[in-house]
């Protein structure tokens, strides 16, 4: 008879007096009974706070006198099919919010941010980027969505996945940098191993390797020499990228607007600029390219071929 108590409603039946005599007798002789009885007796000893009805009623009347219902918005009659559409949309959003407690972190222009994830991995988010993950399930399921650029120092554990619109990066605990803007994806692996998947292509990066894909190339590999991304040290470096990528990065880091004028932004650029001084940054970026720049206002810069 001992097994009865393991039924998921046994104690419920006991409390409501719905056990058979035999069941009850056996149970009352067990040790379980003594323990549960103690709990019930304990509960009897606890009391609820007092609710004073008459006092409440008096206060209620005063409250009612000054109560105004919050304004409800105008009611627009919907046709039945619109109800259906609305219901489906609501359901989708409802499910989404129910099951995905998403956290989104965004950096503005000229701003970087360090984020510690629930699993103690550290993410440094570069300017003009965003990171999204599900707070509730992150520990079990380390997946996050990145727009822009970020450096990851992943703590050991289950697979850690970064999804971007340009591909998917999976790792097991390592340090790596992801850049995913426009159509370009660039991943630098500084420690450990990183797997990148883009559509059907897949590469595995080991320490000191990088991979890039854009409109033209499909995940080409290259060597990196630094031990962490340059932007963590306050500079942005580029290796054979179109000029427009450099321009966009300048705009993000300094929160400025650059008009390209008559400059061909498809030209290839290799070099870097630092994040501390705009004048120097502009000079190091454009002088070697034989491009001159003028300030139209404090935030707007116009380029011109020399």
């Amino acid at each position, binding site marked *: 008879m001992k097994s009865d108590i393991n039924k998921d409603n046994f*104690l419920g039946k006991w409390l409501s007096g719905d056990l058979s005599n035999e069941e009850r007798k056996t149970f009352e002789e067990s040790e379980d009974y003594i*323990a549960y009885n103690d709990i019930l*007796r304990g509960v009897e*000893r*606890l*009391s609820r706070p007092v609710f004073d009805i008459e006092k409440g009623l008096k206060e209620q009347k005063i409250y009612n006198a000054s109560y105004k*219902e919050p304004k409800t918005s105008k009611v627009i009659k919907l046709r039945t099919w619109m109800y259906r559409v609305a219901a489906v949309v609501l359901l989708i959003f409802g499910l989404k919010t129910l099951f995905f407690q998403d956290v989104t972190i965004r950096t503005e222009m000229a701003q970087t941010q360090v984020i510690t994830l629930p699993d103690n991995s550290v993410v440094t988010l570069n300017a003009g980027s965003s990171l999204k993950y599900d707070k509730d399930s992150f520990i079990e399921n380390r997946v996050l969505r990145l727009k822009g650029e970020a450096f990851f120092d992943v703590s050991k554990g289950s697979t850690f996945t970064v999804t971007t619109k340009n591909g998917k990066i999976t790792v097991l605990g390592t340090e790596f940098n992801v850049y995913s803007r426009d159509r370009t994806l660039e991943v630098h692996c500084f420690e450990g191993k990183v797997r990148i998947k883009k559509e059907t292509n897949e590469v595995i990066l080991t320490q000191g390797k990088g991979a890039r894909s854009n409109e033209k190339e499909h995940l080409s590999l290259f060597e990196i020499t630094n031990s962490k991304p340059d932007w963590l040290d306050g500079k942005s470096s580029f290796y054979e990228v179109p000029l427009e990528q450099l321009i966009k990065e300048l705009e993000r880091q300094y929160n400025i607007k650059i008009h390209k004028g008559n400059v061909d932004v498809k030209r290839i650029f290799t070099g870097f600029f630092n994040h501390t001084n705009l004048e120097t940054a502009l000079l190091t970026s454009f002088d070697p390219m034989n491009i001159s720049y003028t300030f139209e206002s404090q935030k707007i810069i116009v380029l011109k071929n020399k």
Partner: protein
Amino acid sequence: MPEKVISVCEEKIYEQLYREHAEKICYYLYYKYGDMEKAQDIVQDSFAKLWVNCSKILFGAAKSFLYKIANNASINALVHQKTILKYQEIAQKTYTNESPEFQMEEKEFLHRLNRAISGLKNGQREVFLLNRIEKKTYKEIAEMLGISVKAVEKRMHLTLVILRKKIKTPNL
């Protein structure tokens, strides 16, 4: 013969409704969320809404109207609220824990029990306390929460099992 229409706008009727339901709704919310002050606020709001809309609400529908408003309000106001319940402990006759596993000072036992109840999930706590303190039958609880009697039975069972575990090892 048409029934005489009872108007909620009539002060006497309104008072009657308040006396009958305010306390119950308040405890219901309290057991669910563990915050008496907030529970009272919500009750007040619910009854104010009933007053403002008194001409539109039939007497017979007032109860469910009140519960509905209270339920909605509480979801808005108390989502994520995790206040520890504060029960006043009655200090009377000395209490002995008979069960060998709960051999501890009475005060400690009640304290752990209290903590364990506070730590229950909202759905478990409300069912358990509505039954144990308000002495509501499973059927009444099931109707209140819109679940089946069987589900109430199961929750009661599970809650007791959880409480026992938590009292034994409070840090669980």
